């Protein structure tokens, strides 16, 4: 088996295996750590697709930011005396039926469609091109994204602020 295919199957098995642990685990802390492994596996798939800039951004932002935030929330919202934090699921059979139908239809579409593919697939560094595009054709979404992040920052502080009642100290 060629090395490229072997590496792809290893990374794909890691990603899918840890995504299964996220979906089927009964403990929310196990799910959070399996999400970490899933995000690293997805990052390996980005590296196989020659997307070096997005792979690094995924590690920095997704694993280093979002996942740490999810771990904070998991640790802050369960009782300290609970060893096995419960993460039960309801309605598993109807969900499995719906997902089975949707998955079969989408899988048939993925395998059967004649995707337009380029004859020569190039592997090249992408950071320069993405930087040029962010300051060129994509400058408006780029600036708008920073406004969105500002709004999200203010909104998160407002939503999670604890109101101090009037009887403290008076």
């Amino acid at each position: 088996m060629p090395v490229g295919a072997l590496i792809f199957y290893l990374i794909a098995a890691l990603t899918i295996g840890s995504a299964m642990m996220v979906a089927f685990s009964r403990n929310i802390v196990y799910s959070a750590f399996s999400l970490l492994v899933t995000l690293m596996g997805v990052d390996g798939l980005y590296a196989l697709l020659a997307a070096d800039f997005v792979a690094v951004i995924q590690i920095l932002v997704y694993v280093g930011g979002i996942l740490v935030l999810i771990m904070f929330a998991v640790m802050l919202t369960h009782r300290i005396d609970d060893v096995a934090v419960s993460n039960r699921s309801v309605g598993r059979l109807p969900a499995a039926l719906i997902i089975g139908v949707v998955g079969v239809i989408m899988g048939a579409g993925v395998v059967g469609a004649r995707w337009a593919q380029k004859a020569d697939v190039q592997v090249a560094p992408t950071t320069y091109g993405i930087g040029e595009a962010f300051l060129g054709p994509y400058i408006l979404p780029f600036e708008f994204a920073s406004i969105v992040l500002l709004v999200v920052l203010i909104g998160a502080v407002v939503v999670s602020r604890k109101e101090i009642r009037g009887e403290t100290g008076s």
Partner: protein
Amino acid sequence: MNAALLDIGLRHFLLVSLVVFALGLYCVLTRKNAIGILMGVELILNSANINYIAFSHFSSGRYDGQIFAVFVIMLAAAEAVIGLAIVLGIYQNFATIDVEATDSLQG
């Protein structure tokens, strides 16, 4: 082993992202823990990102798919922040994050 298994192409990546999407959808549909539902949404967003970058690599030689993926990652961060702030607010008020317990407005 035939060439369809060994020659890694567009369909292989699309099938991986389809499996991750199905598992994320399962999380969103069945979980009772609010953070578990948010983890399912993260899985769905990652599967969409794999699709974007696979198409950018195999079908178009330009960077547009990767720029979209960067925007998706940024918006996933924003949505995770707000979602978890809401989850913490629910925990402060209900002492639980079971989504079936937050039914004060029901009926």
